[in-house]
């Protein structure tokens, strides 16, 4: 979706303000939201693309106003309800519905190191899925404007670049986010000249790389 999350190239967002000696979490609730999301993730009721799409659906004014972990909290609640793990009444009351079964957590302490070290994202060089493009080939990012999830930013659409790296085969977000299957395909680092993206005022030798799937590209 062409949401406000797709903000690459926007002006008006103000200066970048680094914080000295920043803690991992500024308040305890931020850490709890993060680890609740990870621990519930161990139930494998959704994938990373579902999760990202839920963040993107936060209304734009809200998206820009609230903090990162507030977005995570909003997403966690919505996904818990959507997958039927809890009901909205339970969220509102904070207690399980009468008569609900007590489950056994998917993640125990012993499982924490494996969760942290887990390589959940599958990649492969599966020879049965050949690349559609070759390193060095000129490609154009397609002008796609889906209402659903996509990882093709607006600022690259219609722009021409060069295949720089072939990263192998990955799930395709645009289908994977919506229960339409992983549709695995190659992902490439595509190099775009800054001037191709932003016009003549950009420095002549600078460039931006995006990681783009086969279905986002066409020969140029």
């Amino acid at each position, binding site marked *: 979706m062409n949401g406000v999350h797709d*903000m*690459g190239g926007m002006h008006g967002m103000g200066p970048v303000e680094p914080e000295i000696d920043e803690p991992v979490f500024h308040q305890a609730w931020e850490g709890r939201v993060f680890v609740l999301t990870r621990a519930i993730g161990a139930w494998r009721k959704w994938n990373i693309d579902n999760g990202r799409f839920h963040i993107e659906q936060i209304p734009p004014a809200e998206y820009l106003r609230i903090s*990162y972990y507030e977005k995570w909290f909003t997403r966690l609640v919505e996904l818990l309800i959507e997958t039927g793990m809890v009901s909205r009444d339970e969220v509102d009351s904070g207690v399980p519905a009468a008569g609900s079964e007590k489950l056994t957590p998917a993640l125990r302490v012993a499982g924490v190191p494996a969760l942290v070290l887990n390589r959940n994202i599958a990649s492969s060089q599966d020879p049965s899925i050949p690349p559609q493009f070759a390193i060095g080939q000129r490609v154009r990012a397609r002008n796609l404007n889906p209402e659903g999830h996509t990882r093709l930013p607006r600022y690259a659409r219609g722009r021409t670049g060069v295949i720089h790296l072939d990263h192998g085969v990955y799930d395709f977000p645009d289908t994977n986010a919506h229960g339409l299957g992983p549709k695995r395909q190659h*992902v490439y680092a595509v190099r775009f000249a800054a001037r191709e993206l932003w016009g003549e005022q950009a420095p002549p030798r600078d460039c931006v790389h995006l990681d783009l799937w086969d279905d986002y590209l066409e020969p140029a």
Partner: protein
Amino acid sequence: MGASDRDHQHQTVPPDISLRVKSLESLLVEKGLVDPAALDALVDTYENKVGPRNGARIVARAWTDAAYKAHLLADASAAIAELGFLGSQGEHMVALENTAAVHNIVVCTLCSCYPWPVLGLPPVWYKSSAYRSRAVIDPRGVLREFGLDLPGDVELRVWDSTAELRYLVLPERPAGTAHMDEEALADLVTRNSMIGVEKIAAPRPGAQP
């Protein structure tokens, strides 16, 4: 600056967010969906065990071991796995070498993807709308705000983490460090230098390594 930035980021948090999170956690524990001990262990892991010291060890190794550096640049996932630092949100890694002629900087414009196992969880500025919006259209302006005025003849390469690859910048080894061992070098390596928004300063003469 730190305090005001934090205030700025958090001033609009509804007063009850902390209570709402507590209430949700209590519900999920009661339903047997999460184990509070596992939650505590996860917080401890991300607060104390996973962080930019991991990335710094990779960088220091590459600075002191030419074969490792070549491996890192050719197959970062394998080279990082050797040191035990692959994991969730850092499954598939690419290393980018900064030199006097080429400077790399990493962003995720669409959300805030970040290589957790090697750098820990991202700082607020990395997740800010300002960084996400500007790093691709005005990277030199962003770098100036970090105190780095990149000469015009340096080629600037931005990497927007739009997929499941995660990027680690291998910063330039600063001058005046020929005498230092791997561990002392690791202490010089800053998180920001591994995102590409800073260079690593040469150690002050006479300072503790």
